[in-house]
């Protein structure tokens, strides 16, 4: 029994649906051949450009992180080996080193003339 014929019918018609399915169904045994054909064509198909770019970007980001970490390690080690710059600019050392200029040295050239 088919469902009433009305444009407002929201239910599928099982009788017509079954008849159409039977009519449209590919013959048995063709399914595997079709799937093989599609998969073989897919192997030949180019990989989508977007996917390639996406993969490259992931690799690029990972490489940049590794490079940044490596650079950080190198710079950090270099900084540890170097003498602390603070020692050269220690205010106490500067003050301690300040002595009154020797008057003889300052006046030597002048007195020799």
């Amino acid at each position, binding site marked *: 029994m*088919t469902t009433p*014929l*009305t*444009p*407002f*019918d*929201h239910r*599928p*018609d099982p*009788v*017509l*649906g079954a*008849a*159409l*399915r*039977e*009519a*449209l*169904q*590919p013959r048995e045994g063709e*399914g595997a051949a*079709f*799937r093989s*054909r*599609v*998969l073989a*064509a*897919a*192997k030949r*198909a*180019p*990989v*989508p450009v*977007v*996917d390639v770019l*996406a*993969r490259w970007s992931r690799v690029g980001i990972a490489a940049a992180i590794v490079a940044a970490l490596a650079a950080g390690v190198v710079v950090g080690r270099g900084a540890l080996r170097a003498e602390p710059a603070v020692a050269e600019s220690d205010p106490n050392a500067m003050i301690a080193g300040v002595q009154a200029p020797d008057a003889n040295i300052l006046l030597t050239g002048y007195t020799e003339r």
Partner: protein
Amino acid sequence: MEAGLAVRAREGDRVAFGDLVERYADQARRVARAVLQDPDDADDAAQDAFLAALVKLHQYDVRRPFGPWLMRIVANAATDRRRRRTVRRADLLEEGLVAGGARPDVVAEQAALNGRLREALAQLPPRRSLAVTLFDVEGYSHAEIAEMLGIPEGTVRSEVFHARRRLRTLLADWRQDG
């Protein structure tokens, strides 16, 4: 599940793509056959659709069901192919092929009915064939079909109604003849 397969296929996993083909091959071929009477043409269209889907997988929204997205591509591929074949197939559009014809051999009755149904579908406008096939055969909702075909839901209902009227007449005639 299907979304996961689609994501893996999108990343180049051809096994995942093979799983999707496995799941949807029969449905895609049936939908293509609703528009293209020639089975070879229909299979070519279904194959084109799978390959187009593979290339466009980055456009697929994984939060939504995969079937309607794929069937939209199948419908477009089949419709495009039918448009290109229209001139070649003009001889098949005669009414006599659907309404009349000799009584087939009893043994081949089902096969003959199938052939007539396919011919009847081929006579319908592609959108109408697709609407009734997607609704009555594949079980998609009016809303899903509307989205697949890019038409209002009310238009889908109308297309299904007109297709059913034509096909039910054919089925009824066939039973009376039998």
